């Protein structure tokens, strides 16, 4: 067609329209003549006109409104500052607002800023929900849940500042390429961790979908957008059933909705289990199980249709995994997994079983509900004989019972502490010990920077910290204020390896003096303030000692003998009659408990704590009314995390004060027991590998078994596998895995590896490690450390060096020698011992640790740690003699990470931590300046190992953050 043709069409079109309808056809015939095309054009146009719809009647207003309302804001915000955040760019828009990348101009870090859309600023309901979300999530503390930094309101609107996550959403990841089922399960396990935590504090996510799950570049999964999360009412013991916005309002993306959500029925935590099941299904198959051309079709499928088996699309998916997904996606919540703990355990088992090759037995290990139950739900008309229904009923009731126990009991036990407020007071993450003054006005804490500790004082109400003792060799193990608040007491030592004493100083750090020598625990004042109680440890026993407030007049109250000893804290009861103390049985496995000792008679009475699998209680403190104690236990299933609990006295009934994934490692109560300070440790380790021949590129091997993988030792085997220490399962053991993170497998099962100092070394075909030894007859741990050696498959374990004072071992590549740090002569020296038998020989005569043998086996490098002098690197011949070289190392060297020789032997690798970021550096042996080898931008390195080819590093690194937190509103 051309413009002229269109003009002809238009002319006849208008003329025809002006005629009465019955005359039009004749006019068209006449005016078009033989031009068939022209005639057809006009006729079709007139047909359209007659049947015309209202498409053009109104401009596309709602589209314009929708667009302007959501996109306008960022045009204005980018480049601007809100509070102390400088907006960099728009990251995306969610249901309730836009998310921007911004820079925190105070802390100089990138953050994500979620701003409430301007359209909703006048919408109170939205604002309420927005804040509710923020509060809900900020109460959670988990490596797989996005971290909330602050919730603020400014003139520009309400916003939430959160951790900025660089990576891709699970949605993008699924769209990119198919996931291996093992990878899908690894991601899923991380998601279950997040949801398990949120459920444990009563938060349902309600909008689990791939777009709400981010995968960071290092493989860590983060669950975001608890946008629909709804805090449950903890006092009713029931989950709130309705959304704020009304009973039938559908929230959430419908493809991932549970049937009960789709039906607008009451929902409980099991709705997340269903949505999670849908997400896992999509990860495994690449397609959403419930789809359709319309929302109604999707609702219908969600409510009525059973999704096809995953194995129909991919028969590499294990039958058991298919069952797990089916069980999570049961239409009836009662038939689903009831908790994420069960689901997580099954996912972990399936991964483990596939890796250890015991896959055929997997079905027997998976604690699943019967998966055939779908047959019994649909069709509904089917009748069941009583014998079939009865066991099912029992199962369902059992499920309900478990569910009730898990949720109801948990929520009722947190009852008294439901209104606690937790504020993080320090941003540096370097706090160790902490104390609060009895009136709550002052907080003292120790800060550890590169192994040097300083003491700080803060007024609770203000944000400023004052350094009262500068960093030096002093170690502050425990801090306490005097009862009048005028003095600070600390138990500490004048350096690593020195005996601990009790010291006193003014709150400004002046007039420091030693009060009592040989104090090995926190102290506690008697109610009248005239006496101090503490624990003193000796070779064979330990005792509770009572002394005068200025020292002297010591008397032993009670003594316990190894292996059933006291813990690290005593607490004098408010009436002065009892001293509560944690107890610890140091056997092959630890067992923790708590007793009260009568001060007058010395008799012990256990407190029957209603807690299971308690491994250890670190601290204990009476509350003011004498009716209970606050304590910090850690149980076998808690993953080395101390939580704060309350035990009623004398019943031993337990309530949670905290229940999160942090660890609370020191605490102190005010005189009225309403407020406490604690050191909150966040902890997440992972293993990274550098790319072959490129130390600056790294990949995370996402094979997490425990939160401390590799922290206490990592090494390469000759055939390129990675051996590491992990506390998976409660005890530290040596594990081995392939260099891509697959096939993790424990090599030892009953050793306490690397109790204090990491030590794991491979020489030749054997693995050398340090462990506590177990007495073969009593099956109990023998005091002191022993070096063991075993084959690289974990077989043939044998003892190689016996010394109660040794640490930091390294074996030579040819397997001739082991070198190690020992205090056998009372001082830290490097020793060598022949692995094939013979006497140990001392190599150094200065304070030295962390030896490493060169690849040719001829030289030993070590760290020289002379008191008051800079850290140095020494090199000596394996045959002894005078040191060949002494070079200064940076003061920021991480001594615990040890050192290793590079491939050619012309450099020593060490870990250098600048600020809070560690990298592996090389110190050239010729004395040139050290240079960084890796290129990490965050986190600290705990351990590293160079592979036998000398071109790849395995690095255990992660975040270790120890913050002072203030916990208020402790209403017992």
């Amino acid at each position, binding site marked *: 067609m051309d413009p002229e043709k269109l003009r002809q069409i238009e002319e006849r*079109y208008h003329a025809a329209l002006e005629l009465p309808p019955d005359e039009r056809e004749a006019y068209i015939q006449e005016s078009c003549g033989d031009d068939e095309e022209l005639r057809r054009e006009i006729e079709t146009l007139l047909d359209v006109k007659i049947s015309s719809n209202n498409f*053009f009647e109104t401009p596309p*207003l*709602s589209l314009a*409104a929708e667009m*302007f309302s959501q996109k306008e804001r960022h045009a204005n915000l980018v480049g601007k500052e809100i509070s102390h955040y400088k907006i960099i760019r728009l990251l995306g828009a969610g*249901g309730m607002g836009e998310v921007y990348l911004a820079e925190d101009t105070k802390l100089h870090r990138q953050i994500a800023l979620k701003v409430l859309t301007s359209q909703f600023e006048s919408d109170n309901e939205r604002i309420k929900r927005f804040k509710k979300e923020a509060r809900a999530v900020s109460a959670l503390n988990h490596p797989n849940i996005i971290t909330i930094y602050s919730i603020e309101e400014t003139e520009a609107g309400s916003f939430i500042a959160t951790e900025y996550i660089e990576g891709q*959403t699970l*949605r993008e990841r699924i769209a990119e390429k198919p996931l291996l089922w093992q990878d899908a399960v690894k991601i899923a396990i991380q998601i279950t961790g997040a949801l398990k935590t949120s459920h444990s504090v009563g938060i349902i996510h309600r909008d689990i979908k791939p777009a709400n799950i981010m995968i960071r570049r290092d493989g860590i999964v983060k669950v975001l957008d608890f946008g629909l999360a709804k805090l449950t009412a903890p006092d009713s013991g029931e989950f709130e059933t309705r959304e704020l916005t009304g009973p039938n309002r*559908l929230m959430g993306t419908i493809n991932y909705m549970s049937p009960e959500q789709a039906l607008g029925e009451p929902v409980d935590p099991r709705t997340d289990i269903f949505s999670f099941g849908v997400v896992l299904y999509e990860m495994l198959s690449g397609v959403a199980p419930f789809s359709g051309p319309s929302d109604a079709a999707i609702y219908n499928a969600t409510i009525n249709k059973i999704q096809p088996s995953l194995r129909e699309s991919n028969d590499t998916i294990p039958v058991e995994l298919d069952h797990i997904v089916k069980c999570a996606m049961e239409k009836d919540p009662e038939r689903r997994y009831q908790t994420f703990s069960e689901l997580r355990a099954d996912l972990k088992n399936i991964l483990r079983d596939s890796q250890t090759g015991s896959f055929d037995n997997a079905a027997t290990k998976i604690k699943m509900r019967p998966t055939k139950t779908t047959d019994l739900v649909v069709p509904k008309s089917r009748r069941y004989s009583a014998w079939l229904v009865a066991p099912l009923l029992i199962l369902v009731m059992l499920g309900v019972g478990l569910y009730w126990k898990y949720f109801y009991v948990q929520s009722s036990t947190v009852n008294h502490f439901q209104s606690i407020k937790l504020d993080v007071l320090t941003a540096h993450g370097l706090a160790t010990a902490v104390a609060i003054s009895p009136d709550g006005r002052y907080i003292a804490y120790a800060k550890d920077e590169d192994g040097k500790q300083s003491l700080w004082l803060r007024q609770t109400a203000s944000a400023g910290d004052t350094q009262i003792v500068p960093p030096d060799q002093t170690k502050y193990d425990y801090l306490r204020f005097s009862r009048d608040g005028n003095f600070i007491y600390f138990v500490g030592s004048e350096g690593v390896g020195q005996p601990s004493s009790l010291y006193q100083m003014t709150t400004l750090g002046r007039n420091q003096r030693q009060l009592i020598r040989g104090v090995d625990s926190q102290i506690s004042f008697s109610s009248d303030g005239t006496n101090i109680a503490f624990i003193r440890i000796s070779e064979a026993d330990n005792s509770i000692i009572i002394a005068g407030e200025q020292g002297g007049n010591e008397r032993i109250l009670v003594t316990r003998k190894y292996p059933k000893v006291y813990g690290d804290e005593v607490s004098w009861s408010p009436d002065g009659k009892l001293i509560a103390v944690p107890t610890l049985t140091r056997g092959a496995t630890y067992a923790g408990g708590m007793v009260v000792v009568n001060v007058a008679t010395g008799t012990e009475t256990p407190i029957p704590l209603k807690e299971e699998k308690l491994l250890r209680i670190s601290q204990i403190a009476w509350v003011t009314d004498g009716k209970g104690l606050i304590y910090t236990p850690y149980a076998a299933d808690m993953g080395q995390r101390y939580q704060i609990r309350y035990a009623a006295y004398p019943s031993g009934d337990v309530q949670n004060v905290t229940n999160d994934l942090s660890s609370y490692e020191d605490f102190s109560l005010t005189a009225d027991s309403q407020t406490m300070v604690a050191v909150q440790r966040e902890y997440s380790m992972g293993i990274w590998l550098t790319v072959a021949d490129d130390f600056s590129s790294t990949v995370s091997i996402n094979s997490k078994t425990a939160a401390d993988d590799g922290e206490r030792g990592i090494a390469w085997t000759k055939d390129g596998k990675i051996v590491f220490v992990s506390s998976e399962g409660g005890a530290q053991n040596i594990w081995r895995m392939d260099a891509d993170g697959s096939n993790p497998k424990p090599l030892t099962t009953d050793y306490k590896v690397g109790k204090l100092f990491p030590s794991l070394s491979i020489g030749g075909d054997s693995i050398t490690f340090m462990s506590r030894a177990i007495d073969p007859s009593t099956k109990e741990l023998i005091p002191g450390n022993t070096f063991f050696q075993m084959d690289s498959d974990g077989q043939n374990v044998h003892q190689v060096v016996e010394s109660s004072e040794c640490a930091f071992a390294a074996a030579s590549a040819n397997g001739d020698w082991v070198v190690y740090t020992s205090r056998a002569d009372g001082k830290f020296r490097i020793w060598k011992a022949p692995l094939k038998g013979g006497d140990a020989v001392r190599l150094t005569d200065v304070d030295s640790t962390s030896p490493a043998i060169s690849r040719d086996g001829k030289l030993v490098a070590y760290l020289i740690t002379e008191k008051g002098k800079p850290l140095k690197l020494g090199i000596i011949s394996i045959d002894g003699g005078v040191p060949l070289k002494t070079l200064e190392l940076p003061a920021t060297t991480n001594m615990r990470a040890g050192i290793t020789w590079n491939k050619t032997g012309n450099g020593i690798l060490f870990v250098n931590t600048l600020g809070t970021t560690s990298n592996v550096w090389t110190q050239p042996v010729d004395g040139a300046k050290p240079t960084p080898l890796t290129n990490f931008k965050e986190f600290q390195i705990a351990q590293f190992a160079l592979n036998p080819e000398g071109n790849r590093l395995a690095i255990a690194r992660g975040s270790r953050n120890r913050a002072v937190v203030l916990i208020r509103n402790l209403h017992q």
Partner: protein
Amino acid sequence: MTPDNNSHQISLLLIDWSKGDEYALEQLMPLVYHELRLMARRHMRRQPAGHTFQTTDLIHETYLKIAGGEERNWQSRTHFFGVAAKAMRHILVDYARSKNNQKRGGWQERVTLKDNMRVTNQSTEEIVALDDALSRLAALDDRKVRVVEMKFFAGLKVAEIAGVLKVSPETVKRDWSFAQTWLLRELKK
């Protein structure tokens, strides 16, 4: 660039364009686009959620802002309407396209809310199809495309459109009638 500078520049470019400088249009578009967005945002903020959005009001307000509160130059006002209508078309079509892409699996998934603001007859797919049809129509009769832009995308009145195009209101009506029919037929193809 401050808003005032921006307005001034728009006025100058409008004059250039009215003198037949087609290059001025190219420069005008992004500026008008930006101004419209800013104005729309203010507009949305003042209104309660769920109110009816009026593109015409928006364009008038934007023009008033550019003109500094008084209509100094009738000529530039009509030219502005022409440009603004074209800008509205681009803005809305771009948005409709991006929404379609999202539906087909872009990165961002929006919560599906059955909101009561959805009173329009047009789907985003239809808006995109309309844009394609308009491009075909432009090759045959550009004036009709401009009528559609002003009438449909910008919501202008027939008299205003006639002013911009320097034709009679009757011609605008005829163009509008025929263009609608022609485009509807294209959309049904």
